[in-house]
């Protein structure tokens, strides 16, 4: 079933490419139907997923490259199932969002998009490190072209910057990955299997469990994922990529690609390299290693920087999309600080925040896209009074803003609070300082709301059409999710509660 989910978009890509050039509508319809299939499968998985066990479910394992003991091994557990659902959900939404505003080469666009979807779904399912890496990198190519061909005026710069940053990270990951493979056993018994590696890395005396090794391997993987997340100071590609990318691609970028980084941090750094993790999240541990205890604050500190720096940058933006991009950086900070706590609350919060941010940032980018399609600019100060002109649009935007700034009752609140709650028991000062991010977050969202929707209607936009049915269709499922998860977070928390417990937690 997982393989079906991974490769149906790939088949869809071939199908889309075979459609004659002049039948554009047909290509869109095919792509839409193709993306509905993984969604359907994801919903089935979500329903049939056994919430009471922590292990892997729906696993498939076939020998792929026997000389290196590489398996085609896919499966899901509580960590990946929600992200899988998110990916599958954003697929059809993004095809819908691209329906009218992609003018040239829609066929190639959809084909690349479907390839991207294969890469993303595969990444969240992969349980073999090699496969994991391949899917991680596969997403680069379509993304590069999607930004570079269909993006805004500075698309070439943004596309290559994205590519160079992510590839550099990927290369360090490759070194770490090979090192982990080589340490996993004597020649012939080496493995890339993530569950096995996790087991070996926690076996005392095993080469993989060696502390120094874990710290170096941690750094290799961490930088690779940190660029993807992105964590300060590796974040500079993100605002550029977001601003230039077409709406649907921004949605994928914020909704899924950033989660690939944080998911990797949980799956590899957290689960597989516990001592490496401890070194950067526990001052006592760093001290016991004979290093400055400051190392132990490393991850939480980076999370704090992301929150505060991202929020302050967002506050300074006048470009609507850039504002949302920087707010993403801030929200990723909450995930980091939750991870750094390494306790149940922090981790639950971090994982929930991944899902929530995927939903909310997707909404925000879709909303920016709606107004951009009509006004052809994104200057926050260039609007004004849209509230009376587009009441429905204003309503949905307000919902998304409130969810993003962490209003209780909406999903953003739950994730952030759990993360901070978890972190408070470990990093008191940093956590308290981080909450300032929420305040600044409220400031920039409310200020934007005021500048765009309230006040005198800008006469230029007196005949701006209201949000249409197709656009509403892309937003409604996400809006429902934010409300439902806000009042009833346990439907998501139940999914990964068990999985979180088997991670090397430190209460």
């Amino acid at each position: 079933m997982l393989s079906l989910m991974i490769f149906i978009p790939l088949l869809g890509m071939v199908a889309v490419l075979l459609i004659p050039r002049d039948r554009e509508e047909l290509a869109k319809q095919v792509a839409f139907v193709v993306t509905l299939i993984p969604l359907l499968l994801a919903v089935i998985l979500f329903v049939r997923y056994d919430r009471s066990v922590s292990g892997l479910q729906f696993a498939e394992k076939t020998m792929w490259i026997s000389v290196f003991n590489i398996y085609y091994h896919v499966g899901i557990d509580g960590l990946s199932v929600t992200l899988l659902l998110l990916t599958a959900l954003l697929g059809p939404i993004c095809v819908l969002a691209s329906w009218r505003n992609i003018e040239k080469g829609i066929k190639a666009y959809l084909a690349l998009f479907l390839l991207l979807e294969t890469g993303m779904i595969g990444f969240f399912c992969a349980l073999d490190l090699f496969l994991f890496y391949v899917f991680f990198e596969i997403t680069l190519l379509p993304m590069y072209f999607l930004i570079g061909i269909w993006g805004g005026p500075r698309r070439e710069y943004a596309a290559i910057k994205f590519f160079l940053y992510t590839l550099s990270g990927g290369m360090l990951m490759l070194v770490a990955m090979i090192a982990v493979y080589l340490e996993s056993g004597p020649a012939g018994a080496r493995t890339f299997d993530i569950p096995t590696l996790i087991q070996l890395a926690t076996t005392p005396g095993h080469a993989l469990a060696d502390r120094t090794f874990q710290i170096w391997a941690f750094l290799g993987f961490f930088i690779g994922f940190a660029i993807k997340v992105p964590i300060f100071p590796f974040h500079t590609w993100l605002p550029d990529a977001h601003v230039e990318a077409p709406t649907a691609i921004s949605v994928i970028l914020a909704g899924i690609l950033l989660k690939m980084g944080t998911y990797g941090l949980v799956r590899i750094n957290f689960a597989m390299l516990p001592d490496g993790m401890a070194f950067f999240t526990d001052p006592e541990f760093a001290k016991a290693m004979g290093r400055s205890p400051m190392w132990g604050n490393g991850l939480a500190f980076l999370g704090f920087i992301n929150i505060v720096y991202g929020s302050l940058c967002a506050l300074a933006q006048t470009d609507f999309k850039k504002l949302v991009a920087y707010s993403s950086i801030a929200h990723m900070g909450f995930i980091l600080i939750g991870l750094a706590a390494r306790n149940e609350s922090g981790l639950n919060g971090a994982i929930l925040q991944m899902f929530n941010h995927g939903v909310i940032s997707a909404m925000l980018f879709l909303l920016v896209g709606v107004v951009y399609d009509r006004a052809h600019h994104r200057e926050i100060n260039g609007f004004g009074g849209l509230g009376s002109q587009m009441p429905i649009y204003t309503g949905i935007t307000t919902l998304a803003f409130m969810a993003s700034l962490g209003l209780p009752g909406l999903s953003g609140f739950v994730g952030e609070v759990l993360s901070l709650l978890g972190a408070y028991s470990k990093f008191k000062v940093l956590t308290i300082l981080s909450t300032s991010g929420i305040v600044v977050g409220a400031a920039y969202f409310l200020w934007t709301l005021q500048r765009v929707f309230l006040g005198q209607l800008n006469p230029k936009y007196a005949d701006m059409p209201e949000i249409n049915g197709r656009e509403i269709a892309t937003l409604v499922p996400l809006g429902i999710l934010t409300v439902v998860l806000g009042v009833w977070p346990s439907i998501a928390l139940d999914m990964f509660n068990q999985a979180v417990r088997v991670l090397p937690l430190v209460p």
Partner: protein
Amino acid sequence: MTNVASIPYFIPELILIVFVMAVIIYDLAAKKKGSEGSAYLSLVGLAMVVIAVIVVGSEDRSLFLGMIRLDSFAMFFKIIITVATAATILFSIRSDELDPRTKGEYHALLLAVTFGMFLMASSTHLLMIYLSLETVSLTSYILAGFLTHSPRSSEAAFKYITYGAVASGTMLFGISLLFGMTGTGDVILLSSRLTEMFNTDDVYPLAVLLSITFILAGVGYKIASVPFHMWSPDVYEGAPIPITAFLSVASKSAGFALFIRLFYFGFVWEEASVDWSLMLAVVSALTMTVGNLAALPQQNVKRLLAYSSIAHSGYLLMGAVLLTSEGLQAVLFYLIVYLFMNLGAFFVVILIASEVGSETIDGYRGLGSRAPLVAVSMAIFLFSLIGIPPLAGFVGKWLLFWAVIQEQLYWLAIIGLLNSVVSLYYYARIVKAMFFETADETETLSFSSGHRVLLIIFIIPTLLLGVYWTPVYEFSKVSLGKLMG
């Protein structure tokens, strides 16, 4: 094995010689000048050569009184070289660059250089090594300067000769020193003789060091490693494009065959006073860095690919100096992958040069809409050269880096990987021109079906080897044969 007894095992080379003459005679006798007859005749010859190579087999034999060796390692390179030559001939068919009246000589020379490369892949005697290297060099000089009407081509040939003469002179000097000290030219005897001499303290270490360095200079020139790479950008830029493709793949492969054989049989002995491995690892790091950095500002695609090919020498060298079978296996695997992706990229350059009439990156503008198949193929070849999964180049690089990290050479692996990132930038400039920019002219370009088929022949392995590579990897292991003992 004596000379006469050796002849049956030398049939592939003999077939090549026969066809060299046959092509010349055909060209003289043919009434219609400028036909492609000599090309097809050469292709028939190469097909026969491949069959003969396989029939003769790969059982270890020392031929012609220890001058050359027949083994699976040599067989591997013979097949690679033949495929590259065949591709070069196919590329040259209907090429606008070449004068149709000289096509006969052109093909005869290509077959002759192939013969020389066969010898390079199998020589085990210093004298034979020198002779084979010279055979290849001399014919390559002519091929590089084959465009007699083009000053650039003549310049290329002249530079090639000047550098080549210095390099081979240096090498010959090294050979004479080594021969004078050890009294043998047999590469296999060399290492035991040197060990013996070092054990009895009957040697000047500096003289040995110098002579081996000189010999490596000759080989380094052939594979275009730093600091012997200076000739290659000018030669690659000036030579006819099929010849550039040929030099970058076949010549390099033969050079690596020679290098590995010399290095592993001759220069590595237990009490070596110099850490050759480390020294050459530094050379490899320099080679890839210089190649990649110099490629960054290039506007001419041929020149860009020339520098990138220097960088790839660096990657290959990285695997070759490890002294492990994993490293060598990775080198052989990479050469197979490199054969397809690099020849494919050069083939696109040929197609664009003849259709658009430009060798600069600007000429590639808007190709994505003007010639989608060619543009997508080029993108696939270039991304494979960078080493992005799921393309074959990724697997090649993966195997190389795996071998390097296995030897704990983390610094080398990281330099290599950062180089891959640098290379992304200049390869992506071509991709950017093709897909992100628009051309002044917009009419679609059409290519003959033969060309499209040829392009697809190069694409298939580039894609397939990225996804499933066990058989080819096993083949590279078998090809190592007894080399690693």
